[in-house]
């Protein structure tokens, strides 16, 4: 149960990392009302692995993901994606990084209602002005299980199917890293399980680096590595943990 324990003070650094954070802090507001969401987080995300970030609500896990994914800027510290430091980049440069390095899976899917499933999947490519590689794309659709739903609009799809579209959309440009923000948060448990399986499978099939923020132990259990966040700090780390290990770790955290 305690086998994969790591001390909180040590930075979580691994070899072959594609995303690194160094001493990241994030403060919201000023003066008396200031809130420290992150209080010095350093971490590395390993290439081709599924990393989960877990923590109770208010622990700063969402903020961490936003900063890792260049959606938000740290108050201090810095983030590198594939060797490029994000701080101080222009909007255009960050846009370029998003196109080549970053994919997103959202809790509320964020599909465009007027486009078909296929068009939604292809959107990142068409925004970047690229053409899909035919065989890869067909293979992706088949693996994701969308080949017979490709001309449906999001409103004609179930929640699980919509999230499949979103996953395919995140994978289609073969980004350096995919960020998934509570991907099962808006789904029932059966569908959620299917989606988790799909994510795990995608990491394996495409050696896709994936960072997932979640508060569900079941979701974290599919990860190669789980980082536990509390009060804006990484307090624990597990590798290849089972659902029960994760649950126990969480319980310990909340008991603190």
């Amino acid at each position, binding site marked *: 149960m305690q086998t994969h324990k790591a001390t909180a003070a040590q930075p979580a650094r691994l070899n072959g990392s594609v995303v690194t954070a160094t001493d990241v802090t994030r403060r919201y507001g000023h003066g008396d009302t200031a809130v420290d969401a992150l209080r010095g987080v350093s971490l590395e995300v390993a290439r081709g692995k599924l990393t989960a970030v877990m923590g109770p609500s208010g622990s700063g896990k*969402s903020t961490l993901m*936003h900063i890792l*994914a*260049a*959606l*938000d800027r740290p108050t201090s510290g810095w983030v590198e994606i594939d060797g490029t430091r994000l701080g101080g980049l222009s*909007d*255009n440069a960050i*846009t370029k990084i*998003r*196109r080549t390095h*970053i994919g*997103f899976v*959202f*809790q509320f899917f*964020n599909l*465009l*209602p*007027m*486009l078909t499933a296929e*068009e939604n999947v292809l*959107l*990142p490519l*068409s*925004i*970047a002005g690229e053409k899909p590689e035919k065989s890869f794309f067909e293979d992706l659709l088949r693996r994701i299980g969308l080949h017979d739903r490709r001309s449906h609009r999001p409103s004609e799809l179930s929640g699980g199917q919509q999230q499949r579209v979103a996953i395919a*959309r995140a994978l289609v*440009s073969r980004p350096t890293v995919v960020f998934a*923000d509570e991907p099962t948060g808006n789904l029932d448990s059966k569908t959620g399980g299917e989606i988790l399986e799909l994510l795990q499978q995608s990491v394996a099939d495409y050696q896709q680096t994936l960072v997932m923020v979640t508060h569900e132990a079941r979701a974290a259990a599919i990860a190669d590595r789980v980082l536990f966040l509390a009060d804006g700090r990484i307090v624990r780390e597990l590798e290849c943990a089972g659902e029960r290990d994760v649950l126990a770790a969480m319980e310990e955290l909340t008991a603190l």
Partner: protein
Amino acid sequence: MTRVALRGLAGRKFRASLTALAIVLGVAMISGSLVLTDTIDRAFDRIFVESYAGTDAVVSGASSDIKFEGETAESPPIPAALLDEVRAVSTVDVAAGSILEQTAVKILDRKGDPIVKNAPTFGFGIDASVSRFNPLELKDGRWPTGPAEVVIDSGTAEDERYGVGDRVQVATVRPVREFEVVGIAQYGGVESLGGATFAVFDVRTAQQLLDQEGTFDAIQVAAKAGTSPEELVADLESALGKRVTVRSGVEQANEDSEEVAGFVTFIRYFLLTFGFIALFVGAFVIFNTLSITVAQRTRELATLRTLGASRRQVLTSVLVEAFVIGALASVIGLFLGFGLAKLLNWLFKLLELELPTTGLVFATRTVVVALLVGILVTVVAGLAPALRATRVPPISAVREGATLPTGRLSRYTPYIAGVLVALAVALLGYSLFADELEIAQRLLSIAGGVLALFIGVALLSPKLVRPLARALAPVSRWVLVGLTGVYLPVLYGAWLVSEAVTGWTLGAARRAVYLLGGLLLPTAYGALVALVLRVVAGPVPSWLLVVPWLVAVTSILAAALLLLSTPVLLVLRARGAREVFARPAFERDPATEQLARENSRRNPGRTAATAAALMIGIALVTFVSVLAQGMRESNRDAITGQIKSDFVITSEDGYSEFVAGVTDAAATAPNAELVTDVRQEIGQVAGAGQNVTGVDPQQITAAYSFEWKEGSDAVLAELGRSGAIVAETFADDKDLAVGDAFTLRTPGGRHFTLTVKGIYEPPPFYPLLGAVTISRDTWDSLFENARNRFTFVNVPGEPTKEAKRAIDAAVKKYPDARVQTRQEWIDKEDSEFQQFLSMLYILLALSVIVSVFGIVNTLVLSVFERTRELGMLRAVGMTRSQTRRLIRHESVITALLGAALGLPLGIFLAALVTEALGQWDVQFRIPATPLEIFVVAAIFVGIVAALLPARRAARLDVLQALQYE
């Protein structure tokens, strides 16, 4: 990205088409104006080209080249003997003399009144034996050959159902006479001459009728084969010398069409102005709508950003959306313009301002201009929302309820607005008061100033929304309650009908109430319509004056009915009856009212932009109405200040000169104590074109009062042969003092030296006499045609109806002469002025309609945005009618905001322009009634705009609304 924008648009068809409507009307107006004026242009072209189609050269009197206020003095006639000289020229094949008169010949309708519609009434003397010179085409009958025969135009023939063989009365310089219609003619290819008419006589008859014995107005010449028109012109010039003007047919056609072309161009720009105003208002609507949709799509735009869309791509996608809306709207508007052109023509006809037309002309230029302008305006209006869209941060994709960040510049908006308003006022001041500006320059800077003023005030108005909405909310409430009194009869009426259809299920007492309501309905609405008509169409027939009384009575009755029904309804409701009116109208509904008030204040920018669109329309009608009121006052004062006589005789149209014989005819009236007339024509005086009037020095002071600057009435007796009285402005302009001499040149080519005997100061707004006044005897000896501007008549005692009848009878043989008292004349001018004003109102109404779409748009979009909120309100017990009331209330508050901003702005602009027109002594008067009506109209706009959105809001399914994302 473009596909996303287009698909998004396709997914919001209803909202997109509402948005597009804002541009459609403006483009339609532009395309309609162009189509109509092109059509008029072509008709005139046809007329002129056909007039000289078979003519190689035209010989006419030596041009005097005297111009005054855009009018050119007519060339003098040429002696008939010249025809033989022309025929003697070796290269001449055929030549014929003709008579062309533009004003004096008037065909009478079947009631005996002259047909006059603010257009020329032509009289032709045509030598029909030389058909190649004849511009007209016979539709029926033959050409006239004797003193009792006439051919008339097909338009008049149709309107008055005159046919070949009918007898028709025609007024000329001679007393009215009866002729036989022997033919009906028209200009080939010209469908309608507009308001113009023509009567064709043989040349000899025309000469007699128009006092032109022994003269022609023109000689048409055809060259022998092998001689070019240019050679012919040269030959004729060398043969005839300087006595005449010789032009080739083409030159003459160009010369004739030049004047008209200027007029048509004026109308084109006049109409286009209203198109541009509507487009400007439309731009506000587009700006607002796109701003709202961008705000509503924050999450979608942020998602696109996370997927790698750059700012430029976001910008492009919003602009593409604007472009597509603009393009679609412009295409629709372009074709709608066809219909509008017909409508405008119909409007002109209604106001007796119709111009000649042919089949509608659809020029490539129309297509290009309409599309270009429509698209450009839409895209420019979409620029600001598009720029805002680029500032949506990607993180909004993961945040619930993310809102658009306020712009970097928004902090400075009030300052920018302040600077803009200051700039606008400065620009307006410069353009209105600076001397020596070109007209085009002046107009451009006025347009720029007004534009900047509107935008500046619109930018400032978000600051005003909160306090104004607070102040206006109770007004809106009482207005709505009050209006319920008016529209309740409609509901009663509707129920009456539905009950009658389904079989009576009501008790006798209620049936009686409904019946009463049904009876009140038409009266109430008749009253409203009449009230509006009173403002739009001016003085109304006396029987309509009953109407305001009916309004009052109906309103009181309806209000009483409401009051009485309140306890009844309360009791019924207490007993659990499911009634039509779940809530009595007079019962307060504070929750709904508060929600509405807060709603209109919670997004001040949006409310302000919506109200600003209406503000523009209201400001412009207010401006027009205030300025018009001032001008009307000035006109009245000018007339009462100058005219002393009991009666004034003018031509039927009020401004043309008329036959001098009228004076002698009027003198035969048994009660005529004094009859004196005023001759008038353009002459070249001291180097400039001016009106030169001739008066009887002995009698004029009994009819006209001179405001002497130097001299007195005694000066008139000393006028003699060469004395002149000049207006002060003219004297100043030409540096003339009493005793100074100056020269007069007449259109006929006579030169004469005059001496200033007195200087007077006529009211600058409407001086009735010309800048130079001489004795009538001198005048008659100098000018070719004795034509009167006025004939004044005094009678003993009061100018009674009987007295008028006697004078009427005396001048009956000159049907173009209109006898009226001073007051009648003022009234007539007022009503003509009012007619013009009505046209302005109608044209400005276009921009008000556009702003209605703006309000509808905003409301529809906010209902959409607030779906969840509305669902919640419904879930906690708000009824459908309360939901409707909520939206309606909000709409009326917005509309009242528009009025509250527009009225002062319009009054301010009118004050500015009045000040600028100071030299014409325009007064500043704020007319109460029209302004009140504009406020009522604004409220009406609010109610109408709320109809559809309120319906949508009330129909929301509660459950679905709650789950709506």
